[in-house]
């Protein structure tokens, strides 16, 4: 395959350290120059990352967290899309998913303290108001952090960019948020919650996304970074949840909803055409669909 040649049907892949993980893109079939497609897709992911980094004080999200309690702030399309999706999900799950949990994660030591006015620890997603013209106002100081849902959105945008570049078929995987598009049906593996060095074949998916959340890589002082947003206890010891949905954004967000309340999540999974599997610490699998 030449540097500027069309890729045809030759599978080729690239990986970059982005979004605090490794992002891998595989192109299976395309009309255009695969290197240009890779570059455009990685650039799109970087743009989402720049806008929505909780840690980077210059990100659009960091500015929102600093300023939106004082006066409404207008945000860009990426942040708006993720914010709308987060609040819709918070409402539908009755707070099972809550993008304002960052304050509690900072409190428990899972996130570094940002340079922003201290949040009201009692504030929830209900204190965020979406105004016309993509403007956002906080009724109380909150720290929004989209975490995985922003990663899912980045994966979805990368897939859109690849398609615009004439890529018919491929896979985008941002360390746990994976989307398959085009003709191929892909087998997806997950890490074994009992032993994260090993993996298990979990499902086959076509034209869809899979996200997995688990407590195994983020324990700190014996607690995982997965919080039950309603009673503020940590979740997910030795357990993993995988959600399959048409979009990576929804797949990632739904993993948190399922971890909090698997059976309560059923109607929402159905509404979003999603399915879930839980693997517990003994290796028992339970599917919800």
């Amino acid at each position, binding site marked *: 395959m030449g540097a500027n040649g069309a890729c045809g049907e030759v599978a080729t892949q690239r990986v970059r350290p982005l979004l605090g993980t490794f992002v891998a893109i595989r192109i299976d079939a395309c009309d255009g120059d695969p290197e240009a497609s890779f570059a455009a897709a990685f650039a799109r992911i970087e743009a989402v990352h720049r806008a929505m980094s909780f840690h980077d004080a210059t990100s659009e999200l960091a500015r929102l967290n600093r300023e939106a309690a004082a006066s409404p702030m207008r945000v860009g399309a990426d942040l708006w899309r993720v914010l709308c999706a987060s609040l819709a999900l918070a409402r539908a799950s009755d707070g099972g998913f809550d993008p304002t949990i960052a304050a509690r994660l900072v409190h428990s030591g899972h996130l570094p303290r940002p340079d922003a006015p201290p949040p009201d620890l009692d504030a929830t997603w209900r204190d965020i108001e979406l105004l016309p013209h993509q403007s956002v106002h906080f009724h109380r100081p909150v720290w929004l952090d989209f975490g995985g849902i922003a990663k899912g959105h980045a994966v979805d945008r990368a897939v859109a960019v690849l398609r615009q570049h004439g890529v018919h078929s491929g896979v985008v995987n941002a360390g*746990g948020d994976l989307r398959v598009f085009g003709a191929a049906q892909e087998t997806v593996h997950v890490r074994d919650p009992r032993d994260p060095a090993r993996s298990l074949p979990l499902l086959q998916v076509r034209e869809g996304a899979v996200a997995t959340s688990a407590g195994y890589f983020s324990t700190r002082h014996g607690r995982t970074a997965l919080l039950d947003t309603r009673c503020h206890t940590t979740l997910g010891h030795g357990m993993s949840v995988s959600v399959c949905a048409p979009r990576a954004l929804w797949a990632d967000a739904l993993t948190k909803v399922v971890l909090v309340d698997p059976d309560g999540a059923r109607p929402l999974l159905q509404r979003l055409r999603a399915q879930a599997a839980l693997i517990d610490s003994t290796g028992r699998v339970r599917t919800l669909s």
Partner: protein
Amino acid sequence: MRRDFHVQWLLPAATVLVAAPAMATTYFTVEQAQQKLLPGQALTPVAITLTPAQAKAVQKASGLRVREPKLQVWRAANGAWFYVDQVLGKHEMITYALALDASGAVAGLEILDYRETYGGEVRNPRWRAQFIGKKFGAPLKLDVDIVNLSGATISSAHVTEGVRRLLATHQLVVAGT
């Protein structure tokens, strides 16, 4: 033609899983990475092994331990440099290539491959059984792919640290050769 979203679970509900070992994926060979990062440059390998004193100096400068004193480094005709290095991720060895321009600044980085480490599993008899018949050092051919691993939160911090160590090595040892 665009097909619709389709999912098929591979595991019957309420079964207890038996795990399979993990995988390796090569994204670039060393030659492909050289071509990508330093296109058209003739590269000459440079044989350098850090002396204990040099390794200690690199350690002091970077704050990172030098695990492998023998460097994999090439010099380009235009004065650029090309390194291949390995770092340990959370569960996998990550091989990456780093190109430096003539001034020693990073010109590019590519991940060549990551590889699961099997160290912790060697004690598991079921895992060991599948190696029977294979000779020592034989690469394991597995038909699974890191791209399809959901939930692989691999810390890119380790690669960042590796780059830091290589830059210290370059500055203190290699650039002066």
